[in-house]
């Protein structure tokens, strides 16, 4: 099975590739639309500015093939900005249209705490799911972001609290996403990636 790693120039593509490699999974960076035609799974890693990921998806003409693949039922894992891109829009770049797969909008965490939310934090698990198998509320994951997605009764699997509650792990049908970086979250992150690989196998 081929795991397509959408490569829009984000800094963490090689890290995700390495993390999957350590788990024995081969992935391939994808930059062109035709490369998404027949893939077993898709990972959208992202880091940086919301505008960068959305513009790149359009410039590289990856938006429609990505949406088509997700509609076909191809398992999808969004990481950090790759989670935020699933929404219709973000306060970080209000004029741009996100992928619009999840309802609601991405907005800034409250400025009552230090931002970016940078470092290791824990989850509050609201739904048990195979993606979080073997993981619990004492595990730490690495976050590095200022904007975040709201809680949603349908999609939120785990919350995180930093000045406000936000969605740390989302799941809907074949769509999975984490606000933290599993590729940078030590053994706990590796476990989550392994769970994803098991789901797509």
């Amino acid at each position, binding site marked *: 099975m081929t795991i397509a790693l959408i490569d829009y120039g984000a800094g963490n593509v090689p890290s995700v590739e390495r993390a999957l490699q350590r788990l024995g999974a081969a992935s391939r960076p994808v930059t062109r639309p035709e490369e998404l035609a027949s893939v077993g799974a898709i990972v959208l890693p992202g880091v940086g500015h919301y505008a960068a990921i959305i513009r790149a998806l359009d410039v590289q003409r990856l938006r429609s093939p990505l949406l088509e693949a997700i509609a076909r039922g191809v398992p999808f894992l969004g990481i950090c900005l790759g989670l935020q891109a699933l929404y219709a829009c973000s306060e970080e770049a209000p004029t741009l249209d996100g992928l619009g797969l999840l309802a609601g909008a991405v907005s800034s965490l409250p400025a009552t705490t230090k*931002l970016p939310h940078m470092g290791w934090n824990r989850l509050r698990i609201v739904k048990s799911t195979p993606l979080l198998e073997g993981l619990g509320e004492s595990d730490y994951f690495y976050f590095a972001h200022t904007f975040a997605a709201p809680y949603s009764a349908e999609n939120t699997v785990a919350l995180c609290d930093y000045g406000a509650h936000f969605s740390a792990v989302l799941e809907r049908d074949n769509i999975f996403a984490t606000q933290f970086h599993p590729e940078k979250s030590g053994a706990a992150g590796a476990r989550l990636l392994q769970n994803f690989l098991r789901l797509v196998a």
Partner: protein
Amino acid sequence: MSLARRIIPCLDTDGSRVVKGVNFVGLRYAGDPAELAARYNSEGADELVVLDIAASRDRRPTFLETIRRVADKLAIPLTAGGGIRTLEDARAVVRAGADKITVNTAAVEKPTLISELSAEFGAQAVVLAIDAKLEGSRANPQWDVRVRGGRESAHLDALTWARRAVELGAGEILLTSMDRDGTQAGFDLALTSAISRAISVPVIASGGAKTPGHFAQVFSEGAADAALAASIFHDGVQPIRGLKQFLAAKNIEVRFPC
């Protein structure tokens, strides 16, 4: 729930080998970067910093190779820096596997470099390193920003510079006390607290760490979000797990990898 305080080992390198020195002079070799990185990754370090303290132009490819070798060993974030002067330098470092870039002298000389890096990689990837030296008295302290490995004054107040850097898009401040660096006399709590309370982004305290008590102090009194040290970790004088157990017993939230 809250953020765990981070423990960050720092690998000062000459491009390819880890080196040690006091107040930036009298260097000696302390190991292979990739081997140390693998060790810290498994011992529960929360991040790793790798610096090219020589930062000479012709040794650049060697340092990029070092970043690749180190990144290969890590499942935790990696910050790299030393000699980054342009956006292109930063791109090479990120492509080699760094999650964050740290800049110092070049940002003092051209503050807009911070905005350029922030626009390209996001604020969370831009770490401004400030080397600060006490001026005036302890009763009425002011800290001067030092550049070029601490050798020259930038004639800039550290507090003013930190605030300005955050406005420009720095997502984190790596704050080194030049007065404490290499002394093992403890972090500069007054400096760390003054900067940390004045700005809205996380502060990594550096310089002077020796005992677990020093770390506890810099997190409580110093209000640091993370603490960085080099030789005490390299020498095995202070195992990371033991340090975290000490901090946890003091009710300071830390992450245990398993």
